[in-house]
């Protein structure tokens, strides 16, 4: 197919890799923004989720957060964030995209962490208390480690969605992989367009695989079982986010 040939030609032309708008720089920009957004989303979501899960409170909140979060279109949030970002002196590009990505990333992390901590086997938790551990020790020493697979799975799902959606940043001026797509569309340059699309896809897959390996390395004793979208159980715990 001639499109694939154009893609090949674009990617194998050295001058397309370097410079301000080259593949290397834009990929880095894409990774930089995604990683930052993922970290901030984790920092915002994890502590409250873990604490609430430990206290076995706020189940309804956890369910709602992920349901509402799923319903909010990132493209809309991005477009809405733009004028505010400009008004408050944060400019175009990076910051409005950042806001949209953090908003996107919080729900899966929150819900998985909450469910993970809350669903720890009561017997185990009670033995821990029985051994004289204080609540915070139980949380940090027993519940959190046990919940780790699910927590990491949530971060993984979140990160992949963030990497994918960062592409839209190009529509509000952020120079990233999405910019190849926008430029390619505008100049009917299929090679450039496909380069952008393929690189985003690759980056998403790499993120998924890398974090999956990390998950396995950190929690060798278990694999995050997919509890995909089953109806809420009697405990009232929310449905964890799909884990592919």
């Amino acid at each position: 197919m001639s499109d694939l040939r154009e893609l090949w030609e674009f990617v194998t032309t050295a001058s397309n890799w370097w410079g301000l708008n080259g593949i290397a720089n834009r990929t880095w920009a894409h990774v930089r923004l995604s990683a930052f957004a993922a970290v901030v989303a984790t920092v915002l979501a994890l502590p409250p989720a873990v604490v609430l899960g430990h206290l076995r409170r706020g189940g309804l909140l956890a369910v709602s957060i992920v349901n509402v979060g799923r319903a909010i279109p990132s493209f809309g949030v991005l477009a809405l964030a733009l004028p505010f970002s400009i008004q408050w002196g944060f400019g175009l590009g990076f910051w409005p995209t950042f806001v949209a990505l953090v908003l996107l990333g919080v729900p899966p992390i929150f819900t998985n962490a909450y469910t993970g901590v809350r669903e720890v086997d009561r017997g185990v938790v009670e033995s821990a208390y029985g051994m004289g551990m204080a609540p915070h020790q139980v949380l940090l020493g027993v519940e959190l480690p046990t919940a780790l697979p699910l927590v990491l799975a949530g971060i993984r799902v979140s990160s992949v969605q963030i990497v994918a959606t960062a592409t839209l940043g190009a529509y509000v001026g952020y120079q990233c992989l999405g910019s190849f797509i926008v430029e390619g569309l505008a100049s009917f340059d299929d090679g450039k367009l496909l380069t952008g699309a393929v690189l985003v896809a690759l980056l998403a897959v790499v993120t998924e695989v890398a974090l999956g390996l990390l998950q396995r390395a950190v929690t060798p004793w278990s694999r995050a079982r997919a509890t995909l979208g089953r109806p809420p159980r009697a405990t009232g715990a929310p449905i964890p986010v799909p884990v592919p």
Partner: protein
Amino acid sequence: MKRFPVLFAVLMAFALVAAACGDDDEPSGNQNTTTSGASVPDGPTITIGAQDFGESAILAQVYGQALEAAGYDVDYQALGGFRDLVFSSFENGDINLTAEYAASALEFLNEQAGEATADAQETTDALNGYLTDRGLRATAPSPAVDSNSFVVTQETADSLGLASVSDLAGHDDLTLGGPPDCPTNPFCIPGLQDKYGIDFSDRFVSLDGGGPLTVEALQGDEIKVAILFSTSGVIADEGWVVLEDDQGLINADNVVPVLSDELVDAYGEALVGLLDSISAALTTDELTELNRRFEIDKEDADAIAADWLEGEGLA
């Protein structure tokens, strides 16, 4: 119990109904009413293509409503923002009339051979050379021009003494913000390289085609030089400086209607004459004002066009 398949069928039926309803293109104007005296021969419906930006929608409405008032059957077709689509839509018969820009259309068709000049008629004639092969024809160009212009803030112009595009040479730290096709558009980065010997390719930020992103980037000092369209009302509003095109990079991007031979055959010179009179009435200043109403007052393209035509006595 057969509920499950039944409900599934209901859902699919709903989807099919929605599909059927959704496929109806709402033609905005399909009257066959004639104005006093004018009689229009039977012929194909005129389908006007409008690209994905305000000015294109406004121009489509301007020509369309004037034609409707004269008794023609008119329909509108929204296209994506890309010139590629315009010509392939002509090819497969989706549209048979559109408002194009002489120099840009010419350079698109001749694959950037550089034939466009600053003379509108010359450029249009050259354009027609390429259009005949495609069964198309460009009528007389309008005096209204919408081309790229290189804009800097008053502060930048003052502090660096910039008055023309040539003055940009030697200032290697200035960033350029412009439309996403700038890296390959002959009236953009390659043109600046050719005519002015200035290479912006490593100092370019791709934003939008003279839209709010570019405006905001210049306002926020995130870029130093912005590519805006000459019919954009913001330039005067902000007191920005348009750098003079002293090497003649920008050519005659006059508005020019392009229509299919089929339409010319069906309606003859009466149609061409009407298009010419509409084109002649349109000036750059007026087009700028129409754009301003769309971009700043957020009015709708059809309302803006209707007002202008009424003012001109064309509808």
